[in-house]
Structures are given as C-alpha cells and as structure tokens.
C-alpha cells in the first residue's frame, strides 16, 4: 500500500481545519450576535455546501479557478498560484466545502451561552474582544471541539469536490478517498480495503477520543 494518499488526506484535512477555524470564528460571532437583517442571506450561503451535490460545487469551482476565467487568472497573476489540479486548489475548495461544518457548531455554541454573561462582562468595562476571548470562547469549548472534529472528518471524507478540482493526480491531489476508488476500478480489492480500513479506524478513533474528552472535561455546568 502506498501511504502517500493517506498522508495527503490528513495534510489536507489538518490545513483545512486550521484555516477554517480562523475564518469561521469571526463569521460565527457575527452570525450569532448581529442584528443585521441581511444575516439570513449569509446564513443560507454558508449552508449551501450542505445541500449542494459536491460535483456541482466542484464544477463551479473548477470553472472559477481555471486560468481562463477572471478569478483563476487573477490568483495566478497576483499570487503565482494555479488552483486547478493542484494541492492549494484542493485546500481552497475544501475550505469552502466544509465551511458550514465549522461555522454552524460555533454559532450554535455561542448562541447557547446566556446573554447575561456577555452583558455582565460589558458592565465591568471589558471590551467586546476581551469578552470574546476570556468569557465566550472558554465557555464554548465543547462547541469548538465539535466544530474542529466535524470539519476534519468531513474533509477526510471528501470525494466529489476533490475529484473535480484536483483531478486525481498521484502524489499531488490523489487523496485516500480517490485512491480507494482507483483501486476498486482496477479490481484491486485488497489494497482498497487497506485504505478504507485505515480511514475507518483513524476517523473512528478521533471521534471516540473527542467525544470522551467532551463528556469528561468540558461538561458545561451552569449554575442552577
């Protein structure tokens, strides 16, 4: 078994999770507390990858990233990056594809906190930023962990989008889910099984670990 696809999968999932965490925190904060009327529109857009067939998303991303189109051309000229059939392209696509898996749990976690926690902090003279860091985030630990894990697991399981945008290039964009498909196509069931089993065991172990941490350490106990 070639371990490269597995390595690529976990590299992609880790990077995607890291980048999304940074992007999603401010977005989730805004969605949780803003009173702006147009908020529902943003909420709907964030949720699109949940309902859109991955091939549809992959197809449009492929068009957008192509050097023949404005966005792909602009990225290539400004950053020297080609996003079609490349690993950076996979990362960008995964960030978009997994966005709701990061944003929604964070948003729900923040909204579940009693408003009085924020308000109490404000009346003590603490800024919104200090309140976010020292009051809200520590009390949303469990939601943060859920968001990180869901995003990671969802990226590991990606197939349609990476196939469309990455093109299944060995060592570059052939992640484990694609490798399994390739082996099955070639009637190489034992190798396919090895990949599949590794993904199965690792993702299950991560989930198990996370949920046991969530249950024991971060059990959110509120004053009665």
């Amino acid at each position: 078994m070639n371990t490269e696809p597995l390595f690529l999968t976990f590299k992609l999932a880790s990077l995607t999770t890291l980048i999304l965490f940074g992007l999603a925190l401010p977005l989730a904060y805004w969605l949780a507390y803003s009173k702006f009327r147009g908020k529902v529109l943003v909420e709907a857009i964030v949720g699109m990858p949940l309902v859109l067939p991955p091939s549809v998303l992959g197809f449009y991303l492929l068009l957008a990233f192509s050097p023949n189109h404005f966005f792909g051309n602009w990225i290539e000229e400004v950053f020297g990056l080609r996003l079609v059939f490349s690993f950076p392209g996979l990362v960008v696509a995964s960030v978009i594809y997994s966005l709701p898996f990061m944003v929604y749990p964070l948003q729900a976690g923040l909204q579940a906190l009693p408003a009085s926690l924020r308000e109490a902090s404000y009346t003590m003279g603490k800024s919104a930023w200090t309140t976010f860091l020292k009051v809200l985030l520590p009390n949303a630990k469990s939601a943060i962990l859920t968001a990180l894990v869901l995003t990671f697991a969802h990226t590991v399981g990606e197939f349609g989008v990476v196939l469309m945008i990455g093109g299944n290039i060995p060592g570059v964009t052939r992640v484990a889910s694609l490798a399994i498909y390739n082996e099955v196509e070639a009637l190489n069931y034992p190798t396919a099984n090895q990949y599949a089993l590794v993904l199965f065991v690792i993702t299950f172990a991560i989930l198990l670990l996370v949920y046991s941490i969530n249950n024991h350490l971060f059990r959110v106990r509120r004053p009665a």
Partner: protein
Amino acid sequence: MSDAPLELQLRHDLRTAAGPVTMEVALRLESGSITALTGPSGVGKTTLLRIIAGLVKPQSGRIAFGREVWLDTEQKIFQKPQLRQAGLVFQDYALFPHLSVEQNVAFALKKGQDPGRVDELLREVELTQLADRRPHQLSGGQQQRVALARALASRPRLLLLDEPLSALDRSMRQRLQDYLLEIQQRYQLTILLVTHDLGEIFRLADQVVEMETGKIKRQGTPEQVFAKVHSLADGPGLYGEVVSCKIENGQATVQALIAQKIHKFRLPADQAADLVPGRSFLLRYSVDTPVVEVIR
C-alpha cells in the same frame, strides 16, 4: 465624593406577556441613596435597570449621572455599558461558569486595581472558604453573594440590583442588608434595587418606586407608599408579618414577626379580620390602643 444624582427620563416600547406597553419613566435618585423598585412581574423593572446600565437603548430619553450624560437620544449620545460601569447584579447572577469564585470577582477589577480587593470582598460577603469553588458547586444564595461581590469589585458609584437577596435565607439576607447599608454609607453609593420584599423595602430604602405596566404608579418613602398617612401624633409604625392570629371573646391574639423576632400582641377582634398568616402590616400605638393597618 461629588454629588452625583442619577436623573432619567425615558420612553421605551416593551413587549410584555400582556401585549405591547410603552414604558414612560422619569426618576431621580439622590446621590448616596437607596431606591427600591417594586411592582408585579413584567412591568419593566428589569428593563429599566438594563437601560440604565446601557444594555438596552430606549427609543427616546435622557440619562445623566451627575455631570456625565449617559444617554440623550435628541443629541444622539449613547454611552456604552463599558463607559458607564454601573455595578449590575443580574437576576440569573451571570457568573462565569469557567472561573472560580475568586476569579469571577477578580475579573471585574480594573487595570491596576489592587488584587487584595478580591480577598477583602470575599471576606465581607463571607465566601472566603469557597474561593476556589466553581459557580455550579454553590447554592443559589452563595451565587448571589458572589454576584454582589463581583459587582462591587471595581468600586462602582452606582449599583443596580435585580432581586439581589431573593435566594437568601432570612439571617443571611439580614446580614447582607446590613452590609448594603454599610457600603452605601461608606462609599456614598447610589443603589437601585428591584425587590418584592416589603421588609427589605422598609429596612433599606430611602425611596420606593412602584411600577405598573411601564409607568410609575406610586413614589415616595416606604411609609408614604405603603401606608396611609396618619396624623403626626400616630408616630412611626412597626412593620411586621403575621404568623398566626387567634380570635377569642372579641379579642385577637396575634403572633407576628417584627424586626426578625416573634412578638405577641392583642387587638380588638374587629381590627384583626384581615390578619391572615403571611400578611404584612404596620402596627402603631396611638395613646394606648394599637392600630393595625394591613399593607397590600
């Protein structure tokens, strides 16, 4: 400390269980006084506190604390809660679940404020033993005391208390009432507290404001508001709560809680008709006959 009364005049639409109500309130709290805010649930007492603290922006009005203007909708002035820094004790206490009792209080300190203040406050509200506990490990009354200590930590000049002593047993409540009176005098603190407890109003308040569906219904000293004004010869009354009342041969024997002790006194039976257990009253002696007035 300079003389800094809180003056406010507000108009704000409320959505209550009984439908929309417009709150219209004009109020003046003298510097260093205690004002009790009372009235049925859902008439806007908590909203009024939140407006003063800066957590709710009213449709129109003006709030000034001494020379500082906190709100003036005509001039588009709105000071954020961070700048007003009124000490606010929330009805649900709003303790930070991830911090210990000590850390909760320390969180409220201003930059550069002496950390020794935390120990001092914990001693005053009798929580030193529980300093390392988390809020969920405390009883309701203990949580309320943490919330009070935290609201006092940064030495606010205005203290807003939303039913601050409701979860406490009688003796702890009395000790904290004494404590409030003491800090109010020591720091010339202006206090506005929401309470339903008549005993508390009579013990603490210089001024009582009774609200009804967004408006002020009655306002004045506790005696003016809750007792009909008698002639001066009647003198001040004793506030009490009926424990039991037995009527025999035209004489009523009443046991009542007056100043935290059970007292017994006799009355003509016709005066005692309303004295069912739990009812509050004001007892006066005019010359030699006791006169009892039931408080509603």
